[in-house]
């Protein structure tokens, strides 16, 4: 400008260098973009940082660094300000098997290994014979497992269900709940979308009833009312009653999930199937359900996660599942140490968290695979 006003249109010398542009990559730029992009953001970051620094080191100290990893109750009593893991190691067999007789625990182990193997095989989509593995796990496996666990056949001694407990009981209730509720839920969902008015009414009432009442009430009814409903000479095992209650409860939720899938199938699919002359059940089995169930896998897994967490409620009717058995071990006078209740609860939380989070990840993976629309 200056040079221009003196009459010349050519600069006399070099103009001063412009400052370098702000870096848009590298850690500094990342920090600026993600943590300090504005005044509000900077304040938020500092507050969050303060919370993290306040909470995380003590938690880690308690859980890991200062925790008691070995020794017995004495070691924990000497250091009550941190987790007492020996409590878990001393009791972990009980936490896993409950009061299942020591000599018979191999039966539980076999069932557990088969279950884990089945889940492992099913987790891979490219696995050959995957369909058959799934079918085997869904129908013969629960029946065989029941005889394995209960006994009374092939010379296996009977183990009363009152001796079952711990994580094994959690799995038994959750898995039998899911295995029973899936087919029942599908039938209910089909009934709710049926053209027959009475069928629809019955299914809708059934679903809404079970969805409207708390699971505690269901379990309570199973333990208090169920015996009243049966003929006087018929008695049912307490565990079986709880499982029936859980299964009916879960089937109502499952029905709603499946109904969502049925509604998402375009009408053309139904009409196409009918045009091919397929009768109702064939249309459902061959055309509609395979598509509908596939898109609701995430919903089914989420229902299962809910069911799995809800199995803890059986402690209210006196069954000792994992939480129940830990809860009663906490009150053991030999372990009356300040840190033991925390350790017990953290342990149970960890077990449930790992199981549920793994299932949630699987469900999310399926969801992403099915999500073929536009992504942001």
């Amino acid at each position, binding site marked *: 400008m200056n040079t221009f006003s003196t009459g010349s249109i050519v600069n006399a010398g070099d103009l001063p260098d412009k400052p370098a542009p702000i870096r848009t990559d590298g850690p500094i730029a990342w920090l600026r973009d993600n943590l300090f992009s504005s005044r509000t953001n900077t304040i938020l970051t500092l507050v969050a940082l303060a*919370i993290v620094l306040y909470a995380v080191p003590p938690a880690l100290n308690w859980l890991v660094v200062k925790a008691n990893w070995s020794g017995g109750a004495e070691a924990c009593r000497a250091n009550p300000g941190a987790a007492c893991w020996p409590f878990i190691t001393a009791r972990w067999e009980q936490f896993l098997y409950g009061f299942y007789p020591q000599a018979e625990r191999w039966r539980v182990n076999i069932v557990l290994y088969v279950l884990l193997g089945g889940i492992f095989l099913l987790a891979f989509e490219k696995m050959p014979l995957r369909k058959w593995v799934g079918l085997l796990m869904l129908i013969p496996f629960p029946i065989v497992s029941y005889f394995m666990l209960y006994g009374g056949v092939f010379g296996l001694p009977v183990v009363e269900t009152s001796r079952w407990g711990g994580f094994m009981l959690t799995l038994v209730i959750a898995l039998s709940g899911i295995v029973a509720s899936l087919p029942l839920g599908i039938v209910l969902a089909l009934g709710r979308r049926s053209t027959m*008015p009475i069928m629809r009414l019955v299914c809708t009432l059934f679903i809404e009833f079970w969805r409207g009442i*708390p699971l*505690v009430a269901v379990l309570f009814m199973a333990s208090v009312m169920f*015996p009243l409903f049966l003929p006087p000479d018929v008695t049912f095992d307490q565990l079986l009653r709880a499982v029936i209650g859980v299964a009916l409860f879960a089937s109502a939720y499952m029905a709603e999930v499946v109904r969502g899938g049925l509604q998402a199938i375009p009408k053309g699919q139904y009409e196409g199937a009918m045009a091919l002359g397929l009768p109702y059940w064939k249309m459902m089995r061959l055309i509609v359900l395979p598509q509908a169930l596939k898109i609701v896998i995430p919903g089914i897994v989420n229902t299962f996660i809910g069911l799995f967490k809800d199995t803890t409620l059986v402690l209210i009717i006196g069954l000792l599942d994992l*939480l129940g058995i830990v809860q009663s071990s906490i009150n053991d006078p030999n372990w009356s140490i300040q840190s033991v209740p925390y350790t017990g609860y953290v342990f149970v939380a960890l077990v449930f968290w790992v199981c549920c989070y793994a299932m949630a990840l699987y469900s999310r993976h399926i969801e992403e695979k099915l999500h073929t629309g536009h992504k942001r």
Partner: protein
Amino acid sequence: MTESAVTTLPAARPSFWRDPAKRALVWQALVVLVLAAFVWMVVKNTATNMEQRGLASGFGFLETSAGFGIITTPFIDYAETSNYFQVFLVGLVNTIIVAVVGCVLALALGFVIGIARLSRNWLIQKIATFYIELFRNVPLLLQILFWYGAVLKPLPGPRSLHEAGDSVFFSVNNRGVIFAEPITQPGFNLVWYALLAAVILIFVLRAWARARQVRTGLQFPVFWTGLGLLIGLPLIAFFATGMPLEFKPAEMSRFALRGGVTIIPEFVALLFALVIYTAAFIAEIVRAGIQAVSHGQTEAASALGIKPNHRMRLVIVPQAMRVIVPPLTSQFLNLTKNSSLATAIAYPDLFAVFAGTTLNQTGQAVEIMAMTLAVYLTLSLLTSGFMNWYNSRIKLVER
């Protein structure tokens, strides 16, 4: 198929079994029959069983004196001599209190966490994700037991905190949260009137601001003015009448705190667990709802020059609400139903005092469970009715 076969098709008259309409009738008749048989069997068995066990039936027990105390009985005069119907009412009130307070707090916390989950601030986003993944995947009952058994119960007792004869204005101990009881003096009514006036004024103000915005396009800060009115007017009335409110502190006797307002630890534990657990789910719902609003809406709002915080409030959230409300309803229902877990820590909600203690004392399982279930079903219907009304108000108006 030959030509002749097509032309000589007989009139469509399927046999009885091939006619879908008739088949449907048969199936439905069958279902009705099976259900009727089932119900009849259950009723008959129940009657025989109750007779055998010498159980009474009917609702006469509701007038019997209960004979047990309940630790907290808000809004209802309850004594050990009260009858079972009053036990029912106490339980109902306690359930409703924890459900309503829980829903409001869970919604607030869930919204904050859900928005934090989408924050552009990396740290905030990670903390929100951690919160959601942690609390969503741990059983609620465990969380309740944790808050109650591991956090609130180990708090120091009132005797180790206060000397005998102390006046205590606020105290957190293993008996709960105790604070001084506010006692209104004559003249305090004016404060209530001021509050009422503020509420009416806010409605008037809102209508005026909207009309003005339609007319001139100018916005008026209704929220902040309203907040000012809501706090300011009663405050002015309060000072103008010479502060007619006295706080009567709790007195420390030799063993316990007497007087004051007590929020029992069972309530606190239940509320904490319910709110923290449900908020994690609500946060995910809010996140999904906001992400469901097409990105084009954000871009269009920016193109119109709407400021970022207005963009969220005026463009994104109203559209997200349509996606959020239905699953939110089921979360509220879940919270209400989950409040029955109170029975595990003996918070006197409907389930604990009525389906628990009363059932144990009277043994009238059928009547008591019927009443309890009827309450939960009604609460569910009311909640979903309200949310459906709200949903129809905010849903997309298509012309």
